[in-house]
């Protein structure tokens, strides 16, 4: 696979929004170019721009459809989804 990492260290990731995040962001998905190293960094970046919950306490993150730790390092072309408390069933 070609390396899309940009010369300036920024990465491009897809962010998909569901439920409360979709409502607060006002869209379902976007492509984000970020300097954040980790999922936590990306969250902080976006939470600064939009009305996301300030605390990540009850929120999980999925990268490429798998639950991951918040300190997971982002790779170019990752798909990132913030997972608020699930309530299926």
């Amino acid at each position, binding site marked *: 696979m070609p390396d899309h990492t940009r010369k300036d260290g920024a990465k491009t990731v897809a962010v998909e929004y569901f439920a409360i995040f979709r409502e607060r962001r006002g869209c379902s998905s976007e492509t984000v170019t970020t300097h954040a190293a980790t999922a936590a960094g990306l969250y902080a970046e976006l939470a600064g721009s939009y009305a996301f919950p300030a605390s990540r306490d009850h929120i999980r993150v999925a990268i490429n459809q798998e639950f991951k730790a918040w300190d997971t390092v982002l790779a170019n072309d990752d798909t990132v989804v913030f997972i608020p408390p699930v309530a*299926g069933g």
Partner: protein
Amino acid sequence: MFRLSPKPFSIKPLRYDFLDSAAGAFATFEGWVRETNDGRAVVRLEYEAYPEMSVREGSRILDETRKGFDIIRCVCVHRTGTLELGDIAVWIGVCAAHRGPAFDACRHIIDEIKLLVPIWKKEYYADGDSGWVGLNGLSSGSC
């Protein structure tokens, strides 16, 4: 088999998946839309799923249940979209030779789904208010 259903679904056809002459026990669980939650009157609700990951997590839960319990087959269908009072939100079926594992597996599946499958529920209340379930602490700290 785990699947999402954006429309109400019939249960009868689901039963055909379980026909197996070795099956002596069949346990099912259904989650229904209740009229109240935490004391508030609910008039309808919406389930929103992260579809690909829901199917992936749901299928993983079913696979691991099949490996971990002495059962023959297990199936789960979860609704998405708008649901009214009394509608079926989730259906789970498990068949096994004996009843113990059928009950245990069925319960394990619903417990795991409630914990791990990225599906969210927005409740619409009789007083006109609405809210995402499980986010009580969150809304205040944000906007």
